[in-house]
């Protein structure tokens, strides 16, 4: 079954056996080794909430897909990084969306996707607009869909201003994941981010606007924490505006019970027509973002796998099939068939036990390599937690840090796709090499000799030797091998 890897396309039209083959390709083929264990550091109750949520659990993002529906376009604040008129199907970033839906249209679309994409586990309402301000549409959409697909996880994103008004309903509707965008806890910093807010029937500007917003955000966060609803805090990192301030934000949101903190780089371009774009405010570099993340490491758990997906995204993180499910492609009448999602979930729960066991085993074997230096390793994956993508097909690489302390996910790096229709293009290979700066090795499902040599010339080992293995297992094996050979060389 080599090459029968887990991609959404593969699974969409497949039966249980194909799913099983796809998920179990490589590694231990007895699918019964190990139960679906949770990571050691987490309570069973929280693990139950996040284990199928690709945004809240790094581990889940290998298996499960989310979709967003844009049903709540109205917003009550203006941010300097947002231009509400913007609409482009080729752009991929938060707040950008091509198709606004009514709650009924959203219901049809979600059911059509659930029937086609067995990995679907999460439905989010995440803009454009604010899910809590445009609450009636948010509520109606969630209740229609929860009636038909009771096990789908509901989540929403908000700027927090209207959040305290709806926390009780959020709790009774079983919306158990809420994201609040918090860019500051000091109204003076907010001055440069929020030109105005609309609150209590009037528009507020200046420090008043940021002060009200801040107080409402803190109140909302505390209310959610009290009710046991998991919160993710998104912060847009804006160099020179709030970059140094975000450590303070991290401290405060952690204190108030935030589960996850996601630092997102500002996306800014004059073509987007945003205030920041037009005034030349730059976004942070990779290095700046990682330096900040490293500084916050012992704060609230950081989310490192965010892909800043489109507001109408469909699919696993890092891919978007939204264009396959536009309203015109969705049938007028749809009825939900739970069987395929149920089959997939049963399989994943088997697989994950195996994955977790492999992860632990790797951790134990690496501990012996005491003196080996820390390395970065990039992996090409189509999902399922395995090294299973052709080098030339990768649009992004997952970067892991490996050391005697274990294998740890760091970030993803986007690249231009190198290979299209069998022909590699040298110019885009240069781009890939640039994107892999600092990485010692690339592990992929398959790679040709030409790119392998070019990468070697750039000092990067590329290999398909670990194809189809669990990501951590493959990285661990590679690391062990080079560490041992280096040691032998040194002692010789």
């Amino acid at each position, binding site marked *: 079954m080599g090459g029968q890897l887990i991609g959404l396309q593969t699974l969409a039209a497949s039966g249980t056996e194909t799913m099983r083959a796809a998920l179990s390709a490589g590694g231990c083929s007895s699918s019964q080794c190990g139960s679906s264990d949770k990571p050691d550091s987490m309570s069973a109750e929280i693990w139950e909430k996040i284990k199928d949520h690709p945004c809240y659990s790094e581990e889940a993002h290998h298996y499960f897909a989310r979709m967003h529906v844009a049903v709540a376009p*109205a917003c009550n604040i*203006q941010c300097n990084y947002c231009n*509400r008129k913007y609409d482009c199907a080729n752009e991929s970033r938060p707040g950008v969306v091509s198709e606004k839906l009514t709650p009924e249209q959203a219901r049809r679309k979600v059911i059509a996707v659930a029937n086609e994409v067995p990995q679907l586990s999460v439905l989010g309402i995440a803009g454009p607009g604010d899910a809590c301000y*445009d609450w009636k549409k948010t509520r109606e959409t969630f209740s229609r869909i929860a009636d038909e697909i009771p096990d789908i996880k509901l989540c929403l994103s908000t700027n927090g201003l209207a959040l305290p008004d709806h926390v009780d309903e959020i709790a009774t509707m079983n919306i158990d994941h809420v994201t609040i965008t918090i860019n500051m806890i000091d109204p003076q910093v907010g001055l440069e981010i929020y030109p105005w807010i609309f609150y209590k029937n*009037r*528009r507020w500007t200046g420090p008043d606007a940021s002060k009200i917003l801040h107080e409402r955000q803190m109140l909302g966060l505390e209310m959610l924490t009290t009710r046991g609803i998991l919160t993710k805090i998104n912060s847009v990192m804006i160099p020179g505006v709030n970059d140094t301030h975000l450590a303070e934000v991290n401290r405060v949101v952690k204190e108030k019970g935030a589960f996850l903190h996601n630092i997102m780089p500002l996306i800014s371009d004059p073509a987007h027509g945003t205030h920041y774009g037009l005034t030349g405010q730059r976004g942070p570099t990779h290095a700046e973002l990682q330096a900040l993340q490293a500084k916050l490491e012992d704060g609230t758990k950081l989310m490192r796998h965010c892909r800043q997906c489109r507001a109408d995204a469909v699919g696993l993180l890092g891919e978007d099939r939204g264009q396959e499910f536009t309203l015109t492609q969705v049938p007028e009448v749809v009825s939900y068939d739970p069987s395929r999602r149920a089959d997939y979930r049963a399989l994943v729960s088997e697989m994950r036990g195996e994955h977790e066991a492999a992860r632990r085993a790797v951790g134990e074997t690496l501990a012996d390599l005491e003196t080996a230096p820390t390395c970065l390793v990039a992996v090409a994956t189509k999902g399922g937690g395995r090294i299973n993508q052709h080098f030339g097909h990768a649009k992004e690489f997952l970067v892991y840090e490996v050391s005697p302390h274990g294998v740890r996910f760091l970030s993803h790096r986007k690249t231009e796709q190198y290979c299209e229709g069998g022909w590699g293009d040298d110019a885009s290979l240069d781009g890939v090499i640039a994107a892999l700066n600092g990485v010692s090795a690339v592990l992929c499902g398959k790679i040709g000799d030409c790119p392998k040599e070019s990468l070697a010339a750039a000092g990067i080992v590329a290999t398909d030797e670990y194809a189809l293995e669990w990501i951590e297992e493959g990285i661990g094996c590679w690391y062990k091998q080079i560490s041992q050979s280096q040691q032998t060389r040194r002692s010789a």
Partner: protein
Amino acid sequence: MAYKIVTSQCTICGACEFECPNGAISLKNDLYVINPKKCTECEGQFDVPQCAAVCPVPKTCIPA
């Protein structure tokens, strides 16, 4: 005495529709319009016309 929406600038977010205290704003043929018979410019109701205060695009909800 009424407000109007400059259609070419409208993002169709609908914020004005539910802020309007008079139910004067509705979606007609995928565009938001203000019914001048119902619009009071929020006089006696609020300090500022609610549609103009909430609209994200400058100079889009304006006196007719």
